[in-house]
């Protein structure tokens, strides 16, 4: 109850009340916060908000605890390894404040039950995530639900905190994020030239090919469409068939003893011989050398003794003229160059200091492996993985902390590197490259988590002017750099859409019912129940295209799907159906699909539309502007429009706030489905291309290139993206933290 102290222990908050004021401290007890992630930042953050006095904390994480977490994730102990992070963190932190209620969830934030309605139940969301995909998802859900979000990330000594509030600040997607590094399929599959190509191949191609789900070959169809070498693709198709036999052998107890050899023969011998038969491919490239299982195993393999397969050997680069497994092939292993001929099975040279962070020389998995070592590791790990399949595991995917998969990827990548005359990597290096490993330490997490709470307190005080983007940087003179907030990017395809929430049973509602329901009849709504002949509101019928994410579900010339149920179209709970005006004159409406309320009568309509229906802002047709100043256009247009009152901007470029009184935080949220006077800025129409809808249309145009969107391997390679520490002492590029 308002007025009564929610605290059982007055002494506990003495410090907090002195600093924050009693008002805010009391409000904290009723605050509902969602904390996404219970890892490095998450543990720190949970401790901080529990002690600060946040009353209701929902903590979500899909991960389990690994030994390598314990150097910073201090809510976990050795005995907790393999347990749910969310559950253990909640159990550890809970007792520190009996007034805090922690609701842990061991799950994925992208699951459908975490829909808009669910997000709306929070006053604030705190991100403590480690990947771009989940960050973008939470950002979109928060923009849709109108819940403030504090975003964060760390990488080694670097860190960042960014408050994101719809219509007041940028959202996470207002600034394009660097796309993860990707490689052409043929480079990975046929013509690798760097160690990373071999690692990507082993991790994202070979491992799934042998131990993952069955493939449908769609990736090659896509590659063909993209105009990659047709002959090469035909060869790759042949390859795919042969994989079936190996997969079978790995899974059958009768043949499993020999399955590793079979896999080896296929991948490092037959496939390479096939590729060699395409002489065109090797005209300007060094040819690979097929490997021989038995010769390597008994130490008799030599690159010299191998027939040069098809074609002339004129382009042989000589790098192959080396004996079995001599470490000379290792590009960066300078320490062993001085004629180590004691090759196979030797202890190998100690890891050189080529690893980015000084290598940590002398660590056990940093030694170089010979050809024979790699073969042994290949057999061992393939056998262990096959045994796991036979013991009941359905599929095995790469996990940097799963030693079997890491060994398999290390060995396979190195064997391939041998065959192609490319430098090899130690297990330590492979782990970093394949596992997107970002250095992580307790100190950086502590700083970042502390800043997150400071920003969260500003949000809860509705002190929008105090919000800051904060970067923790390398410069010893200014550890924290603070930047004022930026206004939303008027072209943002995420936060500039108008979001509404529809509660629906997707199995019982068609796309037409949804779309027509949202568009309404354009008549003024009835103001009261007596005023029976009022209209439904909305914009009224108009030509629209309908999307689910990037998939086109319908457009004015293609209505085949309109009478199918949402469920049959894959547009269920937690998804967004986006309605884009065909004439680009009306803003885009993103309809978030949520479940019907639990007490919804069985015979009532299976669709609850928002009330009032959304009337997105209209675009203004502008005379073409000079291309010299395209960036100014939106602001000029906004200033000149009477359709929409632009929120006033103060001199710092911060959008001023109109505080709407002192009701509970819920009442002050951006109203969904607001009419022309609601929040959201007008979009601008320039050069015949909509500024606001530019993104969407671009996506629509890209839609036929379904290869980008379908869950094919090509996509997977891109998603795996691979964070690279390029070269010795190279700078890190990653998809985890964006430091502009």
């Amino acid at each position, binding site marked *: 109850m308002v007025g009564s102290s929610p605290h059982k222990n007055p002494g506990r908050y003495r410090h907090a009340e002195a600093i924050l004021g009693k008002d805010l401290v009391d409000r904290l007890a009723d605050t509902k916060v969602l904390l996404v992630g219970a890892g490095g930042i998450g543990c720190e953050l949970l*401790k*901080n908000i529990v002690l600060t006095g946040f009353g209701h904390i929902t903590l979500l994480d899909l991960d389990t605890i690994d030994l390598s977490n314990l*150097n910073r994730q201090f809510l976990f102990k050795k005995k907790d390894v393999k347990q749910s992070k969310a559950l253990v963190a909640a159990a550890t932190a809970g007792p520190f404040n009996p007034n805090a209620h922690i609701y842990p969830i061991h799950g994925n934030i992208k699951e459908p039950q975490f829909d808009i309605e669910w997000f709306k139940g929070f006053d604030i969301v705190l991100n403590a995530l480690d990947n771009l995909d989940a960050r973008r998802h939470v950002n979109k859900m928060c923009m849709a639900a109108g819940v403030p979000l504090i975003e964060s990330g760390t990488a080694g000594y670097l860190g960042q905190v960014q408050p994101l509030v719809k219509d007041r600040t940028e959202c996470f997607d207002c600034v394009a994020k660097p796309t993860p590094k990707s490689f052409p399929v043929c480079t990975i599959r046929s013509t690798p030239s760097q160690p990373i190509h071999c690692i990507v191949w082993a991790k994202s191609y070979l491992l799934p090919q042998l131990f993952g789900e069955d493939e449908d070959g769609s990736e090659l169809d896509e590659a063909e469409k993209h105009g990659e070498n047709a002959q090469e693709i035909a060869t790759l198709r042949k390859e795919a068939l042969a994989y079936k036999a190996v997969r079978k052998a790995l899974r059958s107890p009768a043949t499993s003893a020999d399955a590793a050899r079979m896999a080896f023969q296929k991948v490092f011998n037959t496939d390479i011989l096939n590729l060699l038969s395409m002489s065109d491919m090797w005209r300007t490239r060094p040819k690979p050398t097929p490997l021989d299982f038995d010769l390597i195993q008994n130490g008799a393999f030599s690159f010299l003794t191998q027939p040069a397969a098809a074609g002339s050997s004129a382009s042989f680069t000589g790098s192959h003229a080396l004996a079995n497994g001599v470490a000379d092939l290792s590009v960066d292993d300078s320490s062993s160059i001085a004629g180590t001929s004691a090759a196979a099975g030797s202890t190998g040279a100690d890891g050189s200091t080529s690893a980015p*962070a000084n290598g940590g020389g002398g660590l056990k998995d940093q030694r170089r492996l010979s050809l024979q070592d790699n073969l042994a590791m290949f057999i061992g790990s393939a056998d262990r993985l096959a045994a796991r399949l036979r013991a009941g595991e359905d599929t095995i995917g790469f996990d940097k902390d799963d030693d079997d998969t890491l060994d398999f990827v290390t060995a396979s990548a190195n064997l391939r590197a041998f065959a192609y005359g490319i430098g090899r990597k130690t297990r330590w290096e492979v782990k970093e490259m394949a596992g997107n490993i970002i250095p992580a330490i307790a100190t950086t997490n*502590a700083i970042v988590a502390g800043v997150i709470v400071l920003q969260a307190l500003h949000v809860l005080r509705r002190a929008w002017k105090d919000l800051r983007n904060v970067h923790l940087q390398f410069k010893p003179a200014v550890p924290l750099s603070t930047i004022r907030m930026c206004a939303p990017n008027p072209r943002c395809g995420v936060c500039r859409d108008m979001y509404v929430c529809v509660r629906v049973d997707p199995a019982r509602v068609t796309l037409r019912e949804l779309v027509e329901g949202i568009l309404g009849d354009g008549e003024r709504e009835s103001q009261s129940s007596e005023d029976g002949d009022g209209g439904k509101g909305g914009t009224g019928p108009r030509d629209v295209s309908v999307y689910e994410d990037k998939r086109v579900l319908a457009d004015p010339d293609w209505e085949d799907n309109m009478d199918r149920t949402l469920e049959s179209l894959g547009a269920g709970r937690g998804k967004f159906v986006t309605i884009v005006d065909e004439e680009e004159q009306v803003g885009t409406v993103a309809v978030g699909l949520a479940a019907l309320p639990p007490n919804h009568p069985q015979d009532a309509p299976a669709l609850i539309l928002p009330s009032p229906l959304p009337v997105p802002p209209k675009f203004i047709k502008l005379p073409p502007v000079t291309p010299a100043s395209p960036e100014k256009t939106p602001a000029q247009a906004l200033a000149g429009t009477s359709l929409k009152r632009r929120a006033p901007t103060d001199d710092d470029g911060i959008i001023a706030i109109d505080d709407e009184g002192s009701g509970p935080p819920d009442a002050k949220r951006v109203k969904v489905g607001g009419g022309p006077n609601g929040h959201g800025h007008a979009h601008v129409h320039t050069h015949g291309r909509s500024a606001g809808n530019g993104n969407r249309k671009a996506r629509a145009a890209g839609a036929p290139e379904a290869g980008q969107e379908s869950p094919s391997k090509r996509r997977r390679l891109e998603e795996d993206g691979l964070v690279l520490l390029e070269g010795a002492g190279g700078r890190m590029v990653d998809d985890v933290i964006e430091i502009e």
Partner: protein
Amino acid sequence: MVDTESQDIETATTTLQSAPDAKTRRYDRQLRLWAATGQAALELSRILVLSSDATSTSILKNLVLPGIGHFTILDDARVSPADAGNNFFLEGPRSIGKSRAEEAVRLLLEMNDGVQGVADTRSFDSIMDTDKDWFSSFTLIISHNLHPTRLDKLSNLLSSNSSAPPLIIVRSSAFLAEFFIQFHEHTIIESHSETAPSLRIDKPFPALLQHALSLDYEKMDSTEHGHTPYVYILVKAMEGWKKSHGGNPPKTTDERKEFKKGILALQRNIDEENFEEAEAQAYRCWAETKVPSEIAQLFNDPALEPAAHAQSRQPFFHLLAALKRFTEEVEPHTLPLTSTLPDMKADTTSYIHLQRLYKARAEEEKAIFQTFLDKNVDIDEDVIDLFLKNAHGLQVLRGRRWGEFERDTDAFSGALASYPKETCIHLALSALANLTVKQPGVAPTAEALRGEVLAIVGQGTELPDALDEAIGELERAPAAELPNTAALLGGLVAQEAIKMITKQYVPIKGYAVIDLIDTTTATLG
């Protein structure tokens, strides 16, 4: 070809998994930052922390997690209700009335069983009176809101002995905080400098020059031609240029353009990225390789003077002295070559060959370097290698004493003009500390705080408005410690402590002032 016995698969696979041990796995993510050398330094360290309040335990948490060897908490306080509410390393109300140090040590140790922790409940004053040397038995001392009289005694003690450990002084109140590292001398080999050592393309060593000149593009097949490393291309092109330009490198913008054009003209087709790389890297031909000015400055360091030489000198300065001689006596008067090559377009053979050339030359120069080392000093080969590899980023820092800044009137008034807000926060925290001596137990008023500030800077000094804000913040909640502020400060201070212990990365110099209302930081002095 060595005839190795074929291993039986079972042994091979069990011995070759090369899975790291539990410790390496635990510290995996941080080893990628400071490597085994940094970890070893942490594990050998002994840290003393004065107080076990929320900020102190937050600092310690971030040192226990990465695995320091030992810590001692010196604190004779008992747990109060306020402590129980804001300190994560107490067991809430159950700890009230117990020894704060003992409770904190017990709970901190739960995080890492590789760390040793001791609670010392003696009084600071008794140790200062009877067992002063005890303080010098630690690697690093950290104090938080230590009583000003005691702080003065401690900082005097540690600054009077050049082998005494560094002291990190932390002060905080409400949303304002600062910390300062008092130390004598801090040398850094692994500064993790962002610049790469020179490849000496402008001053190629004989074997490199000879090999580059021996290359005949005409006779190369397309594979070789498209995979010739840019280092050779540039060295060869440069030699040709010098011949036709009186021995001079391209000087004017036009000449440089012409030089680049000449490189691109060598390209047989546009797929040959190595020539594009060479064009992009052409600046290396005219950016003269010299001893970097920061390193040249170190050669004037007093520790290198002959007088200092005779005394017991740190290995670092023996190495630095040898480095100085090397650059003076060995052509071409640069830092010794390192064998670290960047990635470049090349095939394996040519890259390895190039690497061998660099490696061989680096070994030769290392051998010369070693002849300059004092024969009576035994320095580990690994340390020499590390030193040479990082020679372009060496750092020698000399610290100041706590309080010296205020006594330097000119510097101080300069700071007041350039960083009014931060300087006022520093002054307000000093004033608050002074008042705890003058009026113990009395809540400070704005007036009293202002009076103390004037006593520090001198009556009549004009003070910026920022002072009123800082004083207002302190008056509001002079002794309050918010758990979140403690956590943030704990992260910042521990970060610097780790840099000091590992002697890696460059620590913050001067007073780091933190304003958590604006979330800003700056350094003074």
